[in-house]
Each structure stands twice: as C-alpha cells, then as structure tokens.
C-alpha cells in the first residue's frame, strides 16, 4: 500500500510541476469597451453594432485575461467587431478545441466569424476549423501552426499567420514545415523584434527570446495586422 501511495503522490507532484499558469499583468480597461465575463467566456464589446466576431483561444497555460489588451485595443474601438475569449479547462485549449461552435450558437446576430489563437490555442483553432470548416470565414494564427493531423489546404477561408522574429518557442522552420497544411493564399508575416509572449500581457515566458519592442508595441502591431486582414 505504501508503494501505491508514493506512486500517486509522486504522480500528483509531477503533474503539479507542469501546471503553473501565466498570470495576466494588471490591466487598465479602456473606456470605450465593455467586458462581460461568464464562467466560460470573456466577451469584449465596443458598443458598435457588431457583424463580425473573433473567437480567441489562449496559449497553453496562459490565463485568457492576459489577452484583454489585444482585443480591447483603441485601434479596434470603432470597428463593428465583437471579440470572445474562451476560458479553457486547465488553461489548455487542447481540452476544448471545439468550443468555438458553442460560441457561434450563442451569438446568432454575428454574420462573419474569424477564429484566432496564440501558440497552443492557434493549433487548436486549426483543429476547430478542420472539424467545422463551414463555420468560419477566416483564421488568425499568432506564433502557431497546425498539428500534423490537420489539413486545411483545401479550405476556402483566409488565413493570417503572425510570428515574432525573436520567438524561440515557435520557430520559423515549424511555420515553414506546416505551410502545405494551410490554404495556398495564407498570408505569413513577421513582427521584427517581437517574441512569443508578446502577443499577450503575461510577462516573460520560459525559453522565449527577448522582446526588442515593448509588449504594448507588439500588441499594437498585431492589432493593425489583424484589422487589415479582417476588413
């Protein structure tokens, strides 16, 4: 019995070691946005009549609140866009990759849906599109690429793939190796000086490269690219 006990305690401690989430930095809400939170989603509304929606999957072990600065950026204040950040079980999008379908059912007034994701969240966004391609008009990948089992080469939607040049976690060769799994018209773009963690506001990520831009600068550049892609 002692051996079994030690095994289970050891197993729990081992899982614990890999379960630490990245805590969002303190965020000052922008006045023109209202943030509504449920147990499952964070909805960001700019008060405009939204016809386009963005569903966002956070990176692995990153609290969804870390992406509030990305989706309540002043550049998005006058767009007819509603953003929905999905809170993932254990902060791992792999456990709820198809939640986007439920989000779409929750907001029937939205006409065009884009799905976006950072890192692991981006990989799971690809999986969501692979499972229900007709639900989405486009996809935005931030430091992310599809899993081997996903093939979106024949998908009719548009894809934007953004990566920071100093990202040491999602390397350029990973993006290059998976290009054939994405539609031929996918737009690939690099943020010079940006890194992996710079898409959210949660501090320094282990094994990442240095961010030569400030965190808000990388977020602003990402938002600009995102707006140009969506509109």
């Amino acid at each position, binding site marked *: *019995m002692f051996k*079994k*006990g030690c095994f*289970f*305690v050891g197993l*729990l401690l081992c*899982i*614990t070691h890999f*379960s*630490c*989430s*990245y*805590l*969002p930095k*303190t965020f000052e809400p922008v006045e023109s946005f209202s*943030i*509504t*939170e*449920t*147990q*499952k989603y964070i909805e960001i509304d700019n008060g405009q009549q939204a016809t386009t929606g963005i569903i966002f999957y956070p990176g692995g072990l990153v*609290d969804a*609140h870390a992406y509030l600065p990305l989706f309540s950026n002043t550049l998005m204040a006058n767009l007819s866009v509603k953003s929905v950040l999905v*809170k993932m*079980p*254990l*902060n791992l999008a792999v456990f709820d990759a198809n939640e986007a379908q439920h989000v779409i059912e929750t907001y029937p007034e939205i006409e065009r849906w884009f799905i976006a994701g950072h890192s692991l969240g981006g990989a799971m966004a690809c999986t969501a599109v692979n499972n229900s391609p007709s639900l989405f008009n486009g996809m935005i990948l931030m430091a992310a690429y599809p899993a081997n089992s996903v093939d979106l080469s024949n998908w009719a939607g548009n894809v934007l793939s953004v990566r920071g040049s100093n990202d040491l976690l999602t390397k350029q060769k990973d993006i290059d190796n998976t290009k054939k799994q994405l539609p031929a018209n996918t737009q690939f773009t690099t943020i010079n000086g940006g890194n992996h963690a710079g898409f959210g506001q949660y*501090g320094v990520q*282990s094994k990442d490269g240095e961010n030569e831009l400030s965190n808000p600068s990388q977020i602003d550049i990402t938002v600009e690219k995102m707006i140009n892609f969506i509109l």
Partner: protein
Amino acid sequence: MIRAILICMLFIFCMKVNSQSFDVGLMVFPNIITQNELYDVEKDGLTLNGGGLKFNFQQAYKQSSYNYNLGVELSFNDWGNQILSRLGANTLLDNQTGINIILLNGLALYVDNSAYVFGAEASVFYLIKIKNINRVKLNVGLRFTQNTKYKTIGNFSFVDLPVSISWLFGNGTN
C-alpha cells in the same frame, strides 16, 4: 492556533490505529456562487467550474468513531490550476453512508507568484461494496474556496457542489 492544531494532531496520532486505507478519486465542481472583486461574472444557473484528481490517506482508531484523513488534490477551476492539502474527518451513519468534513489549504499555481488558497468542504458519501469489501466511494457536498491574490489584485471565491467518485485501496474501511 498552531499549538492547538499540534495538540489535536498529537492526540489523534497517539490513539491506537484500527485500520489504514487510501483512496484515489476524480472530482467535478458544479458552481453555484462566484465572487470576483475584479470582474463581474454573469451566471446562468449551475455551471461547471472545474474538476481534478484527489488522493487521501486515512486512519481509523479503536477509541474513536471518527476516521481521520490527510490528502492532496490537484484540481482546476476558473482561476487556473491548484494543489491543495485536504485535512479532515469522517464518520459513518450506517454501514454504507457517512459524512465528511475537510479543510483545504494550498496554492493556486502561477509561474512567478503562486497564490494562497484556502477553503472547506462538507459532504455525504456512499460506499459500494465489491466482493464484500468497500471499494467505491461516491461523494456529494458543498465546498467553499478562496484565492487570496488573483491577478495580484483582489479576492476571488467560489461556492461549488463537488461530486466525486473514488476507488478505495487497503482493507476496505471507508
């Protein structure tokens, strides 16, 4: 306070042990109340807040009708992942059912700055025999947990209705 806890533990562990067992279980936490100082969380009925794994070691004593248990759980909920110690006691109401009270203390797991979490859980359990030995334990209860430092700003607390199923190892006492 610490002295009182130590005296209680000394008293418990000086008693003659009747049996020892441990159990491993899966938990889910349907949520009834959420209170977050930072954001208003809209609720629409009973929602699933999280779940996890638990491990409990238990000692039963000849002099007492209570069994004392010490355990650990790794679980997740709206504020992230957490590891909590579980210190509690239970007693049987009849051969199959009993009540269980547990104090929870531990950490919400964040990379640079883990936060203290405390709570309490009261539950009723039902034991299912397999080949005349109690092997499966079903638990339903009420649980309060509070994270003292979520996002370095405010308190964040939950009242959940935990449901769990456990497998008992050892000599089959509850």
